[in-house]
């Protein structure tokens, strides 16, 4: 406002322009160079390879990928294969149950631990250690425990309950529950930890206010705490869901897909089509369907997470 403007204009455009004019593209070239691996991964692997698979799912590739267009043939064949149906059904049942149970158990355990429990660290360590183990180890351990002749069933029978029957690994109808028990054992600790972090993040004064207002503890949880933890639940949900779609190792180790293919999952179908049945096109089509299911899970979440924020 009150700066002198006039005497300067001659000075300003004339002298002492630095010798080295920075070129836009070369600015921060170190940073750009350093992120080349990331850019390559994003473009080549995540975009490129995914696109490649989707494109090849519309071909009749058998042993080798070829661009012989076959339209929706692979999808038509996929959806008329009983084994694919079994896989989808398994995934749906397993997914729904493990989603519900993981969330419920995870939250309840976190809420219990949040009640200023003595030995909290010990309990947390116990609940979480299975998460450090691989699905292979998990699957093999439960395979052994659920062994009908020597495992849990025989032990309970030996205690006098002769008719007790729980043989999921040998019973096609309930095999999925055998997997569920193992999956919950391995994965609930993680969700508990996330929930516990969420509970710890809630302002202590909320609890004080509820206490002053005379609201019972359980009601505080259902009416105040759980609604406040919505983002934590959403995060857990997305995490569990995207894990479920990938389920593979556990089934391989625990049941091998058996008995009689009863515990097959889509990931197994993909792997078998690609690497043993030499039917690449089927594998690509099936994996594209898996991708589609993830997209269906992610879009509402992304909308809730990011779409909502922009409006707010």
């Amino acid at each position: 406002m009150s700066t002198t403007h006039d005497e300067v204009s001659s000075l300003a455009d004339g002298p002492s322009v630095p010798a080295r004019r920075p070129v836009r593209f070369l600015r921060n070239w170190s940073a750009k160079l350093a992120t080349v691996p990331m850019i390559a991964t994003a473009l080549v692997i995540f975009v490129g390879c995914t696109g490649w698979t989707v494109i090849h799912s519309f071909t009749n590739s058998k042993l080798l990928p070829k661009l012989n267009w076959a339209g929706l043939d692979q999808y038509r064949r996929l959806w008329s294969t009983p084994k694919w149906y079994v896989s989808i059904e398994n995934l749906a049942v397993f997914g729904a149950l493990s989603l519900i149970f993981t969330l419920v158990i995870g939250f309840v355990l976190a809420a219990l631990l949040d009640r200023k429990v003595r030995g909290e660290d010990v309990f947390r360590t116990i609940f979480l250690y299975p998460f450090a183990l691989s699905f292979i180890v998990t699957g093999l351990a439960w395979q052994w425990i659920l062994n009908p002749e020597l495992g849990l069933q025989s032990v309970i029978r030996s205690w006098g309950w002769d008719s007790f029957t729980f043989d999921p690994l040998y019973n096609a109808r309930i095999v999925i529950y055998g997997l569920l028990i193992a999956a919950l054992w391995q994965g609930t600790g993680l969700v508990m930890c996330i929930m516990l972090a969420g509970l710890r993040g809630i302002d202590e004064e909320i609890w004080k206010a509820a206490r002053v207002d005379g609201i019972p503890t359980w009601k505080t949880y259902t009416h105040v705490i759980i609604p406040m933890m919505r983002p934590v639940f959403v995060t857990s949900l997305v995490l569990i869901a995207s894990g479920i779609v990938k389920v593979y190792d556990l089934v391989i180790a625990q049941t091998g897909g058996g008995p009689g293919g009863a515990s097959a999952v889509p990931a197994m179908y993909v792997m078998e089509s690609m690497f043993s049945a030499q039917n690449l096109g089927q594998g690509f089509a099936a994996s594209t369907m898996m991708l589609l299911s993830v997209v269906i899970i992610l879009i509402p979440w992304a909308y809730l997470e990011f779409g909502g924020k922009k409006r707010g």
Partner: protein
Amino acid sequence: MADPASLNTLAAIDPVGDRTGAVGHMDGPRGRRPRRTVSRANIFLYGTLLVVSLYYLLPLWVMVMTSLKGMPEIRMGNIFSPPVEITFQPWVKAWAEACTGINCDGLSRGFWNSVRILVPSVVLSIAVASVNGYALANWKFKGSEVFFTILMIGAFIPYQVMIYPIVIVLRELGLFGSLWGLVLVHTIFGMPILTLLFRNYFASVPEELFKAARVDGAGFWRIFLQIMLPMSLPIFVVAIILQVTGIWNDFLFGVIYTRPENYPMTVQLNNIVNSVQGVKEYNVNMAATLLTGLVPLVVYFASGKLFVRGIAAGAVKG
């Protein structure tokens, strides 16, 4: 605010003398309220926690017990009971003699394969991701956020979608079947989560520190190596924990991208336990399973709170 009238009555009931404690004795509750330690709520609380703990501890107990028994005892007895006669033979056999296909040199081969995969994978993936995260946090350039977003979305793509084309890429690079191919795959698939981890960490470092370093004439690498690295030790430990357990536990990539002689421990374990030939030796199987789980378990118990921090950092999106 209380109205003056009630304040007056309050003062009348409770004259100054009482409030200052000049009167020695008054009736009614005083001090800490008595509370029973064994309340019904506490019984429920600890009862539940103990029962649930049993469910979580049971498999570990069973595995350890089974691995210390001889086969005759396993066939006779119950899986929960401790061994009558402790034998370490199953452990020895699992480590050095168990067969997969034609190889009968036990899990030790898989163990060393896993180590050979693990070390370069952890080093490379963390090196790449930490630099990525640093660049994304402090040296944003046009498009950097786009690539990061793609990377984050990529973390949700089922591996099965990308597996086959990556086989082709690795074959073109001449790495298919080799350990280095697998190292590359681990670096790629570890990148989203690790980059997020490092990006968020470096973003939480005060920006002014970065500015001060620039005024002091330090560039991209110098700021990274001399300022950022020395102050980010905890996050590196978290990343190492995350990667060691993740890579050690991997099965899918190991089975696809390596040849049988390079199979990591998890793959070999599965082949030993789930092989259809021969008599099932449950004690050896459990010893092998425990051996495979030992590395992540040691990491878990040794790292304690950092492990929790690691998975929380991995789970809660930035």
